[in-house]
C-alpha cells in the first residue's frame, strides 16, 4: 500500500516547538481524519504536506509531483467572480487555452455533484454559507488533484447542512477515490467520513491514538476511545 510519510519532522515558530521528531504514515486512496486540540499544529501539518511550509528538519515522502486541492474552514471564494469563474480560476493552469468547453463541462459536473447545478452564474454573495462551502468542495474535486487537504472545513456550518455536505462528500468519494486528509475537531464528523483516524496531542505533537479501517469497528466504543484521548 502506498503511503504519504512524514519522517522525524521538526518545526518551530520563533522557538515555539510544534513538531519534534514527529512521524506519521497516511494511506493513499483513503480518507484520514486527524483530530487534536486547537493550536496543536494540525494546520501546520497540512501546510507541510501540501508543500507550502517547509519543516525545519525531517522529510516528507510520497508527495513529490502530486497535485493538491484544499478545502478551508471558510469557502474562500473570490467575491467578484461567479461560482463558475471561481472554479475556472483554479483550473486554468491544468487546461490549454482552447479547452474552455472542457473546463465548463468539468465545472458543471462537479456543481451537479454538490447539488448546485443552476447556480454556476451566481455570485458568492447570492449564496448561503452552506452553498458557498459546497462550491469550495466542488472546486477541490474539480481540480485533477491526487490529494485533498481539508482544514476544519465544516466548522462554521449548522448541523443539518453539515450532514448534507458530508453525504455529498461521501457520494463523490465513492466514484472518485483520492487521498483525503481531513482535519477536524468534530469527532462524529471524523468517524462519519474517515477510513483511518489519528488523534494528536498538544504540541510538541505526538500521536496519542490511531485506528485504521474504522468502518469495520464498533462506532460507540471507538468514539469513547477517541474522546478519552482528546
Amino acid at each position, binding site marked *: 500500500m502506498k503511503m504519504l510519510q512524514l519522517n522525524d519532522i521538526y518545526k518551530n515558530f520563533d522557538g515555539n516547538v510544534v513538531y519534534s521528531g514527529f512521524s506519521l504514515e497516511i494511506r493513499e486512496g483513503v480518507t484520514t481524519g486527524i483530530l487534536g486540540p486547537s493550536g496543536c499544529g494540525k494546520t501546520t501539518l497540512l501546510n507541510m504536506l501540501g508543500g507550502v511550509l517547509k519543516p525545519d528538519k525531517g522529510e516528507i515522502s510520497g508527495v513529490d509531483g502530486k497535485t493538491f486541492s*484544499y478545502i478551508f474552514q471558510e469557502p474562500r471564494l*473570490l467575491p*467578484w467572480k461567479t461560482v463558475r469563474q471561481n472554479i475556472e*480560476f483554479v483550473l486554468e493552469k491544468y487546461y490549454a487555452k482552447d479547452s474552455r468547453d472542457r473546463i465548463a463541462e468539468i465545472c458543471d459536473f462537479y456543481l451537479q455533484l454538490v447539488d448546485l447545478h443552476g447556480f454556476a452564474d451566481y455570485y458568492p*454573495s*447570492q449564496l448561503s454559507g452552506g452553498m458557498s462551502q459546497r462550491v469550495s468542495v466542488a472546486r477541490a474535486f474539480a481540480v485533477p488533484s491526487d490529494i485533498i487537504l481539508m482544514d476544519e472545513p465544516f466548522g462554521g456550518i449548522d448541523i443539518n447542512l453539515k450532514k448534507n455536505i458530508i453525504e455529498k462528500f461521501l457520494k463523490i468519494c465513492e466514484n472518485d477515490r483520492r487521498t483525503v486528509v481531513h482535519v477536524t475537531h468534530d469527532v462524529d464528523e471524523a468517524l462519519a467520513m474517515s477510513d483511518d483516524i489519528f488523534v494528536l496531542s498538544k504540541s510538541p505533537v505526538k500521536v496519542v491514538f490511531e485506528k485504521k479501517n474504522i468502518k469495520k469497528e464498533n462506532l460507540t466504543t471507538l468514539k469513547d476511545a477517541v474522546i478519552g484521548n482528546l
Partner: protein
Amino acid sequence: MRSSTKNIIVIASVAVLLVLWEVAALCIGSENVMPGPWATLVATIKLFGQKDFVLVVFSTILRGIVSFVIAVVLGVALGIVAGLHEGFDAFMKPWVVVMRSTPVVAFVLLALIWFSRSTAVFIGVLTMFPIIFTNIVAGIRNVDVKLIEMARFYKVRRRSVIRNVYVPSIAPFMVSGISSAVGIGWRAIIVGEVLSQPRYGIGGSLQLAQMQMNVEVLIAWTIIAVLLGALFEKIIRLIENVTVKRHI
C-alpha cells in the same frame, strides 16, 4: 425615495438658489457688484463666443490631464511599493502628511518662485498624488490574505493572481481615490493659475475679470469651471460603473 421625487427636489433647490440670487442682486442694485442670474447667463453664453475661449478652457484641461497622469503614475507605483512594504510606507508617511495638510496657497506661492509657468501642474500633482497614493496603499492592505493563500495553495499562476485577486480588490479604492483626487485637483489647478497667470487658463481669466471688476465674467468663468468639474465627475462615475463590478 423615488427618483422622480428626488429630481423634483433638486430642481426646487436650484430654483430657490436662483431666487435668492435674484433677490440679493435686486437688494444690492448694482450690476457691477452683484449681477443677477440672467445677466450672468448672458455673460456665460458670451464667453463661448469669445475668441480665445476654447484655448483658455483646453489649456486648463490640459494642465489637469498632465498633472493627473503624473499623479496617477507616481501614486500607483509608489502606492504599490508602500502597500507591500511597511518600511517604505513609513518612509512615505511624513511626505504625504505634509502634502495633505499644507494649504494649497502656500504651495502655490512657493511654486511661483520655483517653477513660475508650470506652477499649476505642480500644484495639481501635489494635491492629487497623496490622495491616490493613500487609496492604493489602503487597497493593497484590503486584499484578503486568505484569498491570496487560497490562490497560492492551488498554485495559481502569479499573473492570474494579480489580475483576478489583487486588481479587483484594489479597483474600488483606486476609483474612489481618483474621483476625490480629480475633484480636489481641478480646483487646486485653477487656484494655481490665478496666481501664476499663464497666458491661457481659466484661473488667469478669473483673475483678469477680478482686476477689471467684471463680476459677471468672473461668475461666468466660475460656472464654466464648475460645469467642467461636474463633467469630469460624471465621466469617472461612468468608468467606475463599467470597471468595478458590484457584487461584493
